[in-house]
Structure formats: C-alpha cells, structure tokens
C-alpha cells in the first residue's frame, strides 16, 4: 500500500483488547483519510441520543495519505467523536458530531507505526495510557500520571518508555475532570482544541497515547511526487502571506482583522478593539517574547511560536505558543491589554488541557454577566469578574480545570452554565452550543454563514471562506471568478470590498470553500496553504500529490465529491438528532444589536437576507428546505443507508415545531 498504511487500529479499553483492521481499496477511495475515516466511524458506531461519555462513543485519531510525508504542511491529525460540548435548540442533552484538528508530529508517528486511524472505545477501570510501538501494543497503567499537567505528563511517559522521539497525545487535568471543552495535545503544545475531545478521552480513563514506528511510508510515483512537492514548497516559499505568517505567526491576522473591525472584543459583543494590532501584532510580540519558532511535520512555514518572558512579573516563564486564536480569546475577548499575562494564560490553558477559545469564552461571558448585573459575587462564591482582570482569570482557569467552586459551573461551557444559572443565555455567542471564535459574525458574512452551517458547531475552520476578505480575494481573483461563476462574480467585484457584509454571493462561496478546506483534512495536510494564501492555489494543489503518493487514479472531481460526502455524513449526524434549519442560526443579539465601534459600527445581520441565504445554501447542497439532506443526494453520494435515519430526524424536527 502506498501513501496510506491501509490499517486501522482498534482498541477496547474495557475489554483491554487491541486489534488491527485492514482498510479496503474501495473504502480508502470513498473516504480518502483523516476526517473522512473519522466521520464515517463516528456516524456508524454511535446512535441518536447517545451520551458522549458513553463508553461506546468511538474516539478516533486519523491522518490522511499525505500525512507524515514530504508533502508540505503534512502534519495534521483529526480527532473525532460525539461531542460533549455541542447541543441543539432541542435541548442541551442533544449532542452531535464533534471533531478537532491538531498539528504537531503525532500524525507522522501514527503513520510510521503503520496506521491511518486509531479508534478507541470502552472505558478502562483505572487510568491507563496506550503504548504503540509498531506492532507491539500495550495498555499501560497511568495512575501515577493522573493529575499531571501536559508537559510533565508527556515528559514522564517519554522517560518511562526511554526514547525522546516517541510522540505523545495527552490530556491535562481538564480532560480528566471532564471539562466539556478539554482538549488533547501532542508534541508538548500542539492542541486539538475544539468540541471537547479531551473530555471524551478522560471519560475513557485514557490519559495518553504514546506512539513510535519504523515503517517507512512508500510512495507510488516518487519522482512525480517529489516534483509536485518541490513545486508547492517553492510556491509557499515565495508567497508573501506565508512569509509573513512565518515571521509573525498567526498573530499577523490582528492587523488585517482590526482594519475591518472583526476581532472579537468583550465577549464578541463589540466587533472592534482599539489598538489591538499595536498591542498584540506579531512583530511586537516577537520582539518581546519570541524564544524560537516551531513547526509541525514537514512544514516549510513554521507559524508555531515558543514564548520566553525575559522580564517583569512573569520573568523566566516559557511555554509553547501562543497562536492568534488563543491570544485573541484570552486577551481582547476579556478586554485585556496586558500581553505578558495573556501569554501566561495561553501557556496555562495548554498545560491544563483546555480549549483556549471556549476557556476565553467562559471568562468573557461571566464578565459580561457581571457588567449587565445578571451575576454578582454572591453567585460566584465571592470571585469578582471584571473586564481585563487577568489575575482573577488565571485563578478561574485553574478552578475550571479542577472543577472547583464556580469553576465547576463554567467547566460545562457557556450554554450549559447559562442554563444552570438561569441567566445570560441571550449573550452566549454560539452556534449549536460551541462558542464563536474571535471573529464577529455581523461583519464577514461568509464566516457568519459558515459558523451557523459548520458541522461541529460555531467554527470558521469548517467553512474557511477566506476569499471574502479583501487581500485574499485580490490575490486569488481568478479562483473567485471560477467559484462564483460569471454572474455572481460580477456582483462580487461590483460591490467589492463592501461585499464583505452582504450575503448575496456567500452561499455559493461557502459551499465551495467548505469542500476545499475538507480536502486538506482528508489528505492530512494543513488548510492554511489552500485556504487563505494567494499563490498556493486550492485543493487542486494537493490532489496531484495525493495521486502520486497513492498511485490511485482519483480525479479532482472524485476528491471534491468525497469531501462533499464527508460533510454530508457529519451533517447527517446532526439531522439524525432532529437538528437542522432551527439550529443553523445565530443568537438574537447579532440580528438586533449593531456592532459597537470600528469601521462597521452599527452593522447587524438582516433576518430576511439571512433566511434567504440559508435556503440558497441548502439548495446548492441539494438539501431540503428544512436543511435535511435529501434522499436523492444521499443516494448520489453512496450514503443511501442513511435514509431511514433522516426520516426519524425529520420526525423529531417536526415535533419541535
């Protein structure tokens, strides 16, 4: 087998059994890899209404055929399971598909051990970790590791097993304590943050997976593969956006973000934070805090940072990261200008094993509740929440991870906390229970639509319609025209750049870009190159590499359809729960309250346009008016087995009406 390793590792922690399954060529062609394998397993091996902490919930790790090879940016692992974090307007007990994507070096190690995917089910009777050394599998005692933070835990495992090249995916105290937004980290600081996969891992009493392997990845057509890989590397080497990303890290986005006023500020309520790029911009940050960059597997860019704080209160502190989303959600989102403290908080959430976005959301939501008078110190056990208060925030982060005091409530995530406390539901910035990232949904409508339609709850990385932004649009002009077709592209450029906040072209743009992004997840590469940077092209930059690596004659169209299939099965996971049109929306706040400040002051989402865009989006996907995948479409995608589930879903949907 070339490109793929052709094997899936199955683990049952309850039975303490480990076995290997072969993946058939037809299966590989149908699901390609990574997110595809995972979404297929998660759909078929769970059922409607299943609790995410049910031992039967499969926790899947997978990478694609390009993962761990010489292809540029080939270091991505997708982790999937039913998510404890998300919910539907049908109720917080309704859960759906969850996945998260991490960089680092775990994907490569998994391939070298001989596996495309690892599926873990069952619950161990006491804490364990999984040790995979080629074809040697061991479920090892982890009682002595329980309670350790990420760095300490990883170090202990590596020392215990005696090889520094062993790659470890691990959860921190947050995952152990079932914090709903706990994450999984590998290589000391590459996180798979969203949708609470760490909590699922914790619920299985699984502290870590340690992996090492000596199997090379064989390449079907090495010469073509090398040529294409060099060509793509060369493009990335010369792309200005990639060079900037290398110099500044993802914090280069603050600059552009604030110019159009979309950076989340104060619980994603204002849409603008003055001076944000001066305070948090990548160059400024690098001057003060950068120890050295770091990179994921085979990445020519290296946007990863490593912090070392030289002076001040936190002198001597060093940690992996931060990344722009972490900074923005633990900084501007809680209205803090204190970069050093925010940096320390970014390090803290990594060490505790929590999603920095949802952790920031927990803090900022409580702060706004205090401001609005919804909550007071009486409710929080005496803890005052004040905008910009980093010191208290640090204590609260620790309390969340340990589920102590008020932290126990915040550990449930915004929406469940609001439900428990009976206040503040109107100011939870979320879709399907997952809190927004740091981009205001009232300005960039492609992102906004993407949040609502995302198959894992509010998130930009499912949709990733970066072409709506000025810089990306200009550098990818031809692609914009190709994607939108003659009529819509005329409209796009006519309104450009104010096009950003109109919905006209967005359904089309979204349906294309979500598939484009999905291809990166399928092949096991990073979406950055094909998602946003001019010059590096689109998914068709990866498909020739895919063909050369695997030797399979997969046309561009087939790969694009595979991406559609994967999105469909994730969507079907929600449909099965009766979640469709009613959940594809934003909270009332974004329809009623305008942006507070910045160039787009006063802007809000127009309800009529929004409804039109949703219907249009369904039409482009060939789903029905309520957002359920049509039987016709399911048959086309080879998913006809899902039809009965859809019918049950429609019944649930009608009951809610």
């Amino acid at each position, binding site marked *: 087998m070339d490109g793929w390793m052709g094997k899936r590792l199955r683990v049952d922690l309850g039975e303490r059994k480990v076995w290997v399954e072969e993946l058939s060529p037809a299966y590989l062609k149908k699901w390609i890899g990574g997110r595809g394998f995972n979404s297929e397993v998660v759909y078929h091996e769970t059922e409607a209404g299943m609790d995410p902490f049910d031992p039967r919930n499969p926790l899947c790790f997978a990478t694609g055929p390009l993962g*761990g*090879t*010489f292809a540029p940016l080939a270091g991505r692992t997708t982790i999937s399971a039913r998510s404890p974090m998300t919910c539907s307007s049908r109720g917080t007990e309704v859960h759906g598909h969850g996945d998260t994507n991490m960089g680092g*070096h775990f994907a*490569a190690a998994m391939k*070298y051990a001989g596996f495309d995917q690892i599926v873990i089910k069952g619950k161990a009777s006491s804490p364990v970790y999984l040790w995979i050394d080629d074809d040697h599998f061991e479920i090892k005692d982890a009682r002595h590791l329980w309670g350790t933070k990420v*760095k300490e835990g*990883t*170090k202990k495992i590596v020392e215990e097993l005696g090889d*520094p*090249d062993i790659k470890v995916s691990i959860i921190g105290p947050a995952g152990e304590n079932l914090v709903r937004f706990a994450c999984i980290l590998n*290589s*000391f600081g590459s996180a798979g943050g969203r949708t609470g996969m760490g909590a699922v891992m914790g619920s299985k009493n699984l502290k870590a997976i340690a992996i090492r392997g*000596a*199997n*090379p*990845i*064989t*390449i079907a057509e*090495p010469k073509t*593969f*090398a040529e294409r*890989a*060099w060509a793509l*590397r060369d493009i*990335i*080497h010369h792309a200005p956006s*990639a*060079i900037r990303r*290398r*110099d500044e890290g993802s914090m280069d986005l603050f600059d552009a973000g604030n110019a159009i006023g979309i950076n989340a500020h104060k619980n994603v309520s204002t849409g603008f934070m003055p001076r944000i790029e001066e305070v948090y911009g990548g*160059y400024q940050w*690098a001057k003060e805090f*950068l*120890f*050295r*960059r*770091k*990179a*994921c*597997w*085979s*990445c*020519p*860019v*290296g946007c*990863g940072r*490593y912090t070392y704080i030289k002076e001040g209160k936190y002198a001597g502190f*060093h940690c*992996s990261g931060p990344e722009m989303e972490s900074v923005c959600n633990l900084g501007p989102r809680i209205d803090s200008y204190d970069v050093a403290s925010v940096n320390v908080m970014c390090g803290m959430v990594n060490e505790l094993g929590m999603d920095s976005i949802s952790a920031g959301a927990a803090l900022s939501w409580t702060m706004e509740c205090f401001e609005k008078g919804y909550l007071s110190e009486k409710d929080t056990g005496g803890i005052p929440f004040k905008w910009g208060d980093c010191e208290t925030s640090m204590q609260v982060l620790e309390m969340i991870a340990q589920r102590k005091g008020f932290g126990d409530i915040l550990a449930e995530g915004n929406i469940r906390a609001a439900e428990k406390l009976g206040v503040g539901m109107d100011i939870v910035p979320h879709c399907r229970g997952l809190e927004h990232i740091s981009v205001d949904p009232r300005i960039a409508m492609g992102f906004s639509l993407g949040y609502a339609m995302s198959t894992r709850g509010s998130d930009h990385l499912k949709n990733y319609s970066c072409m709506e932004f000025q810089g990306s649009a200009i550098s990818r002009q031809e692609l914009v025209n190709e994607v939108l077709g003659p009529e819509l592209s005329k409209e796009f450029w006519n309104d450009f750049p104010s096009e950003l906040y109109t919905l006209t072209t967005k359904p089309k743009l979204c349906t294309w870009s979500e598939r484009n992004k999905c291809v990166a997840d399928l092949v096991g590469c990073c979406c950055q190159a094909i998602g946003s940077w001019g010059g590096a092209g689109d998914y068709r930059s990866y498909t020739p590499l895919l063909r050369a690596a695997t030797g399979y004659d997969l046309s561009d169209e087939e790969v694009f359809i595979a991406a559609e299939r994967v999105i469909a099965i994730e969507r079907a996971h929600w449909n099965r729960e009766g979640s469709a049109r009613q959940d594809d929306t934003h909270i009332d706040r974004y329809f009623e309250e305008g942006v507070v400040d910045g160039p787009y002051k006063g802007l809000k989402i127009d309800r009529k346009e929004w409804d039109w865009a949703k219907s249009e989006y369904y039409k482009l996907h060939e789903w029905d008016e309520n957002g359920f995948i049509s039987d016709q479409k399911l048959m086309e995608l080879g998913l006809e087995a899902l039809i009965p589930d859809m019918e049950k879903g429609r019944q649930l949907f009608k009951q809610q009406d």
Partner: protein
Amino acid sequence: MNKKKVIVIDPDKCVGCHSCEMACSLKNFQKCSPLLSRIRIQEFRDVNTFIPIVCQACEDATCIKVCPMGARIRLESGAVVTNESACIGCRACIYACPFAAPVINLETGKTMTCDLCGNEAEPWCVKSCTMQGALKFVSKEQVSKDLSRKFAWKLKEQFQPQQLTEEKDGPGFSWG
C-alpha cells in the same frame, strides 16, 4: 584554497519540522521515513530546541581511520560515505564520530552518511530548509566568515550608539 562546499547547520534557526529528513529519505530511498534519512533532527521539544546532526565531512575524518574494512571513503565532492559492499556493519564509525553522525540503514544494517546529493546543485535537505535557514550549503572558506559575522552581529550593539541601531534584520539574525 578549499572551495568545496559543505552543509552548515544553525540550530538557532531549526524549528523541528523534519522536512530535511523527509527530503533525504525521498531522494535516496523513494520513501518517507526519518529512519531512512542521513540527516537527523535531535529534539529537545520541552524547551523547543532542535539540533540537526549530519556528517560534517571532516578534513581529518576519524571514521575513515577507524573503519576496519576501509569502507569509509571520500568522494570527489569532499563527502565521506560508506562503501556498502565493503562495510560489515560494525558501527565503529558511529562510535568514532564526535557527532555520532553516521546512521544505520535499517534495510541493510550498514551505516550511511550524507553524500551531498551527488550532482544536484544543492542537497535536498538544504533546499527543503530554505524558509528556515537552519541548513546552508556553502564553501568551506565561507563557513568561518559567516559564523564570525553572526557573532559580530550580536556584539555590534555594544559598540554602536542606540540611535543608529537598525530596525531590520542583518545577516545571521532573524526573528527565529
């Protein structure tokens, strides 16, 4: 004057992406595996420090001296490699090397080191590191010039009034 080129490493700039290992194994074995690579990145990931280890093709190479079979040979390019037909896989060259740079080829059990990619203008590992700059392919006379320039750059500020300090990067210095 010795104009022959060698691979120079700069651990300050290595970000641990392992692209060089992938390039090397792909070039020489048509496969991707760090264990088939003649260059190896030693990681100290807990402190984000990475050291590339590759044969330095020493002028007075100990590996050539200790090899009991005379299998360590110097090529025209200056590279020192293992003659696989003579090598018995005793690993003496690894012990003798101050960097333990020779690696064992898992397929044959014999040692291997960098051959500077033969006729290529630039070794693949160096080419794959273009964005990071941790590996360079330069003539021997340039090595000491570059290194002393790098240290001079660090010292420079002590001898220069603050107002003249340039904002931009100089040689041997970057954000990373």
